[in-house]
């Protein structure tokens, strides 16, 4: 009697809440698996899905978004054994999700406020999500580096399109399965594996993107992203990867500020 043959996993992209193959049909190898090699059309589809999902996601209450992020933490905790990642990195990633779950309904009092204008008006300034955020994830740490940028973007009410590390895409694709069970609405998070040099410029140049967070630590690519983003005044933040929980939460406001807009409104006060 021979041993039981295990059923092998097929890795897929995560776009619009569904697990799809690259429309190009191409693949790269990673740790013995065939991993989809995302194309410019996949990027296009992901941005479209993220744009479509951004209105409803932003319209949910902050409390609801916080609960969903917390559920992502619950899901990652329960699936931790599936990841080929060191346990401390997973624990840190879970805790980062918990930390940012608690920011959703705190950003407004911390970043917004009432403006004491010198005229009889009630004037207030409110942070709002910028819309669709692109993330160019780092090679290392593959999971924590991604979560440390994704969590604040979502906490602020944005949807996201993330380009995973070319060398270490599997933790990001495994994360997709975790998000798939965590009540995250389709299109709110999109995860694409592929070659960064090929896809990052496409993402940065996409006019429907509102902001891009570049954690590639590649200066030449970073400059190219800056240049392409300028075509549609896309907001850009460059950052080194968070390599620990403490680093990921050391300055949360900077991560949140990079992906929010401030709206100021005025209303007369008087008879």
């Amino acid at each position: 009697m021979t041993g039981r043959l295990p059923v092998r996993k097929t890795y897929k992209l995560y776009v619009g809440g569904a697990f799809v193959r690259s429309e190009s049909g191409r693949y790269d190898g990673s740790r013995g698996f065939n991993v989809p090699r995302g194309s410019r059309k996949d990027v296009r589809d992901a941005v479209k899905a993220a744009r479509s999902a951004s209105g409803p996601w932003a319209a949910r209450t902050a409390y609801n978004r916080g609960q969903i992020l917390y559920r992502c933490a619950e899901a990652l905790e329960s699936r931790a054994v599936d990841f080929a990642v060191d346990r401390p990195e997973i624990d840190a990633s879970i805790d980062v999700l918990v930390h940012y779950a608690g920011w959703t309904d705190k950003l407004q009092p911390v970043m917004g406020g009432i403006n004491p204008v010198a005229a009889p008006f009630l004037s207030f300034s409110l942070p709002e999500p910028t819309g669709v955020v692109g993330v160019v994830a780092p090679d290392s740490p593959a999971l924590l580096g991604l979560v440390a940028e994704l969590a604040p973007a979502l906490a602020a009410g944005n949807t996201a399109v993330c380009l995973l590390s070319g060398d270490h895409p599997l933790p990001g694709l495994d994360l997709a399965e975790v998000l798939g069970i965590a009540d995250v609405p389709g299109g709110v998070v999109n995860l694409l594996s592929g070659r960064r040099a090929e896809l990052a410029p496409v993402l940065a140049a996409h006019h429907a993107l509102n902001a891009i967070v570049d954690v590639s630590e590649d200066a030449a690519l970073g400059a190219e992203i800056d240049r392409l983003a300028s075509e549609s005044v896309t907001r850009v933040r460059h950052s080194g990867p968070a390599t620990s929980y403490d680093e990921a939460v050391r300055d949360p406001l900077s991560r949140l500020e990079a992906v929010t807009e401030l709206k100021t409104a005025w209303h007369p006060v008087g008879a």
Partner: protein
Amino acid sequence: MTGTRTQVVWDYAPAPESPDHVRLRDSYGLFIGGEFRDPVDGERVPTINPATEESVAEIAFAGPQDVRAAVEAARAAQPRWAGLSGLERGKYLFRVARLIQERARELAVVESMDGGKPVRESRDVDVPLAAAHFFHYAGWADKLSYGVGGREVAPLGVAAQIVPWNFPLLMAAWKLAPALACGNTAVLKPAETTPLTALLLAEICQEAELPEGVVSIIPGDGSTGATLVRDPDIDKVAFTGSTSVGKDIQAALAGRGVSLTLELGGKSANVVFEDAALDQAVEGIVNGIFFNQGHVCCAGSRLLIQESVADVVVGKLWERMGRLRVGDPLDKNTDVGAINSREQLERIEELVDAGEGEGAQRRTVACELPDRGFWYAPTIFTEVAPAHRIAVEEIFGPVVSVLTFRTQAEAIDKANNSAYGLAAGIWTDKGAKAFEVASALQAGVVWQNTYNHFDPSAAFGGYKESGFGREGGPAGLRPYLRIA
């Protein structure tokens, strides 16, 4: 079709929320040091269902030695609790929030059985808000400085917390969540007539594996509370209840340097201007005074109507009151439940009699009330003068007193003419007027074109004799922190 049509009558059938799935113990001890213990010098008493006057379960009141033991346990647990990272403390509170959500239905049914409020309210308001409060403050635990303008903070230590019978679980959440998030430990005394959901919350703390001693729950009567606030080893007192007891507590703490927050009574003005959307205003008035049988500190118990629309509004209000359903709190169609206790019923009756004696015009909805239990039908007083007792004193029942005004300035004056200052409502379609009146009112919470809305992120608390300190939002952290 010829001939007379037979009159259709469509009555709602009973729609009881089943208590079958609720598993209550026959007897609950005191929750101290992470476990349920027999009282040392306190007594065991039944807690009754005010709709039936039957016992729901046996509970224990804490005696003086029990109170001491609880404070000791809280003190012992405090350094380690405060020594945890904010993230870790927050994760305990997130667990509590999730457990409340999981046990939501059970908590809602028990809240209605123990306190008398309609199950629709405990299901849709009390329990969800309690879970949300823990969830919100869980997220502050590792962000405290951001909530206080960047200052360095430290916990106060041991918090003694006394909560009332009108929103038992919700008030327990409002007290425990911020205290614990800030690194304090707590001794909570639920109200005499409504200990059960707090005791279930104690079970939830056990399920969440909250370290022993971080939370103690010790039911008791007024003397238990008095003993607790006089304990020599507490750092903080937080009290929600009547203004007269609040004043006693403030006096008892004189010279002790114990931090205090008070959330007391009110006689809140609900102001309807002639340019209000009147049908919506009527719904808001009903929600403001008949929600939870009027047992709400911020109830809109003084209805101030602009004279030009007073008759129309009173007419619509009276008609709407006639459709309120008074009865079994466990029936999902009930709008007005049972009065919490015989004592409270007597207080309401006394004040209503006084109102009639003073010359105000009373109308009470005619409805069949059950034989057993404590009930009061929705009541409206017109021809009320500002000096009448029913316009000045808090009735804490389903009784609204109507006064009129001519101008905006007069409305503001009348609304502010009270020793209380908890809440107010403003009904007008003109935004500029709504904001102008809001800034002129001496009330801690102002609702514009709505009433009785609460959120863990929105600070709540009073001006003047309605108390001081705030619960909710970053302002709700401050009372539980020491600036280091």
